[in-house]
């Protein structure tokens, strides 16, 4: 029996291992498995759906500390995971007549743990007797090779994965409960406020950056702008000092240069060669995909995973920036040459020496992300196509010649002032030719200028500029910071980055800290800064690495962690009242800012609030006096996107204004938008758009 991680992987593996390439899919209710034959072996290929088993608390009570747990079927913890039950039942039943078990999940920490737990709790077999297939792509060749060269299970890796789950469970459950219960005790509300081992430090980074931005005072400086005439052409010159500190100094430079004639002192050319960028690791792919395609890291990971399951690329959860010599570059490039978009490029690369540039980072389990050369079995979605194009072009470019560019510069002097003008010329594109749309640079020709030429300065100005605050994080930069600080893993970081926003701690794409985020950060920073500390998490990561290297073991690490967690929880309990009070104050500020829309125009003394109907789940604006049966004022709201109350009223109807952000679109409207005399045109346009959309949908259904 081969235990795989997902249905798509099971199908691929069964197909690759079956001698006749026609495995049989046996359907059992809503689930299925595959039967195939390889030589004398009869193979049963079953699949999981990611993790089939999760940790569950063994002691009673929704309180803390809770330090004991056990692995149970996922549907016992997550009531929505009903699709897991028939899968576990099927694996249990099929396991009865099996001679040999093989783990064929993704070869990484999570994949190994999924396989191990499935063997232990569903197959009810001893994992010590099982075998492990190790592969980095779902291509026939690699899967065949992995099956013929199976190994034993990697127990240190599994143990480390198990500890990671246990530690995350211990911290997540206990800290979230501690925070939530402190609010309940202070105000009687049940509002879940979550934090975790990595989420706390991630929130702390965002909050510290927000502090810097909120405290920022721009400082002035002056930039000298010079326009000159040379051979009847206008030239823009730069002053040798980028920033002049005072207005009087700026004015002095202007006075000294205005109307003067400067002399070209020197014209120089500096040739620079630039090697290709190294092959993609997951984080460099996520960063480049965000930069060029605007995909957030979690989306890039999901798309890359889908391309991997489609056999189009190698395993994406890798830290490596290196392609091993054992990789058959020629076969991959030949495969790519059969795809019409890549024929010319693949053939060009094939003509050269197939020696790729290598990066510094390595990963013992997987090579850098690369195309397999196989045509994707399934048609790619537009987003998958774009990411695939980025991966393929990066792969071509690592075999490319260096890019050669000339930096040109003319130094110009006028009395004791230095000016210059610059140009950039690309001599040879090299690898950048393959990287195509993902290579961006601006060429700028140097004007026809020679040493000794005179240049007349026609306009000299000192423009006042101001220093800028540090930039807010975006999903890619926060992910990069977590990686640099060694927090979380390549598989979990993008989820953590998403969670900071999905929990309401930040607003918008730019990770602007919300009032709720502030409330949590400032309370923890004041009373329990250890819960925000990256030091503790980094130490845990190191211990988990040590387990993988057999320098320590699960029991030792867990005992240590439980002791330190208990100490944190005891301290929390002592400060619970004060923490609860501060969180409640913060939550009140948060709700006021995000849900309150001023006083009610109908009853006058009620407060308008954004509320959600418990029956339909739809949101609308209602009056706080409704519960007392005094006022029934309501206003409809757009159902999609996030709504932020604005501190202004509508110029047409005097109702409160709101900002709606849905996807990449953001607009402002008033809460009275359906009746507002100034918005009837917008309403008409919306109706027309909706009618058009439903017509289009009806057409699609018909076809």
């Amino acid at each position: 029996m081969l235990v795989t991680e997902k249905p798509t992987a099971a199908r691929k593996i069964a197909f690759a291992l079956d001698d006749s390439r026609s495995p049989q899919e046996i359907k059992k209710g809503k689930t299925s498995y595959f039967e195939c034959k390889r030589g004398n072996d009869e193979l049963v290929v079953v699949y999981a759906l990611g993790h089939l088993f999760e940790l569950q608390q063994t002691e009673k009570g929704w309180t803390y500390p809770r330090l004991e747990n056990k692995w149970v079927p996922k549907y016992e913890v997550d009531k929505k995971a009903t699709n897991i039950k028939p899968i576990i039942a099927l694996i249990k039943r099929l396991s009865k007549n099996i001679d040999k078990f093989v783990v064929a999940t993704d070869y990484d920490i999570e994949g190994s743990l999924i396989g191990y737990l499935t063997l232990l709790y569903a197959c009810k077999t001893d994992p010590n007797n099982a075998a492990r297939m190790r592969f980095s792509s779902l291509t026939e060749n690699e899967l065949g090779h992995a099956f013929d060269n199976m190994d034993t299970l990697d127990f240190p890796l599994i143990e480390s994965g198990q500890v990671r789950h246990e530690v995350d469970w211990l911290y997540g459950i206990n800290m979230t409960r501690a925070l939530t219960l402190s609010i309940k005790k202070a105000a009687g509300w049940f509002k879940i406020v979550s934090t975790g081992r990595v989420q706390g430090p991630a929130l702390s980074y965002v909050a510290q950056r927000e502090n810097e931005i909120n405290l920022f005072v721009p400082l002035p400086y002056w930039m000298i702008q010079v326009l000159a005439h040379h051979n009847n052409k206008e030239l823009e010159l730069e002053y040798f000092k980028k920033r002049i500190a005072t207005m009087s100094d700026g004015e002095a430079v202007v006075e000294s240069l205005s109307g003067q004639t400067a002399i070209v002192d020197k014209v120089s050319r500096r040739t620079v060669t630039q090697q290709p960028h190294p092959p993609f690791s997951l984080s460099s792919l996520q960063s480049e995909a965000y930069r060029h395609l605007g995909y957030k890291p979690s989306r890039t990971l999901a798309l890359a995973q889908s391309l991997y399951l489609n056999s189009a690329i190698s395993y994406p959860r890798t830290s490596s920036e290196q392609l091993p010599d054992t990789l058959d570059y020629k076969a991959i490039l030949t495969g790519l040459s059969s795809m019409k978009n890549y024929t010319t490029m693949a053939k060009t690369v094939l003509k050269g020496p197939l020696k790729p540039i290598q990066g510094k980072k390595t990963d013992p389990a997987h090579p850098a992300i690369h195309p397999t050369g196989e045509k994707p079995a399934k048609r790619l979605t537009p987003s998958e196509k774009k990411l695939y194009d980025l991966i393929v072009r990066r792969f071509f470019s690592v075999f490319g010649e260096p890019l050669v560019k000339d930096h040109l510069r003319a130094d110009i002097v006028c009395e004791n002032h230095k000016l210059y003008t610059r140009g950039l010329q690309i001599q040879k594109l090299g690898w950048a030719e393959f990287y195509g749309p993902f290579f961006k640079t601006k060429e700028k020709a140097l004007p026809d200028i020679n040493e000794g030429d005179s240049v007349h300065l026609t306009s000299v100005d000192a423009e006042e500029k101001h220093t800028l605050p540090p930039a807010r994080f975006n999903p890619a930069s926060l992910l990069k910071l977590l990686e640099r600080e060694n927090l979380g893993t390549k598989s979990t970081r993008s989820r953590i980055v998403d969670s900071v926003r999905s929990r309401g701690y930040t607003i918008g794409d730019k990770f602007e800290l919300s009032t709720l985020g502030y409330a949590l950060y400032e309370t923890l920073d004041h009373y329990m800064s250890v819960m925000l500390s990256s030091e503790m998490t980094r130490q845990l990561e190191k211990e988990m690495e040590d387990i993988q290297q057999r320098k320590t073991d699960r029991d030792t690490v867990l005992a240590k962690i439980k002791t330190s967690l208990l100490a944190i929880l005891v301290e929390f309990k002592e400060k619970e009242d004060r923490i609860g009070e501060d969180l409640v104050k913060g939550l009140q500020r948060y709700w006021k800012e995000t849900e309150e829309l001023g006083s009610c125009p109908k009853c006058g003394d009620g407060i308008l609030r954004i509320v959600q109907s418990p029956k339909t789940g739809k949101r609308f604006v209602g009056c706080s006096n409704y519960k007392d049966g005094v006022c029934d004022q309501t206003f409809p709201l757009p159902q999609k996107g996030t709504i932020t109350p604005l501190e202004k009223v509508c110029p047409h109807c005097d109702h409160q204004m709101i900002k709606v952000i849905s996807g990449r679109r953001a607009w402002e409207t008033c809460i009275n938008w359906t009746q507002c005399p100034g918005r009837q045109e917008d309403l008409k346009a919306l109706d027309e758009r909706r009618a058009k959309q439903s017509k289009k949908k009806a057409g699609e259904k018909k076809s």
Partner: protein
Amino acid sequence: MTECPICGRGRQEKFCSYHQTAFDNMKEMHTKWETAAGLSWEDYLDKIGQLEDTGRWIREVIEFITQQDGL
């Protein structure tokens, strides 16, 4: 401990820790603006209040002290 007149958080000095740091920061930066552009305190408040990149807490302090008719 009473409340910060700007945000209602607890305070040890004139403002809460955030707005107090903002106020101290503003005072420190004024000397730099004075040297660079010769701005008086009032002109400086007016100037930075209009700049897009001035921090939120700084703006809130400016608004407060302007309403209080200067400090």
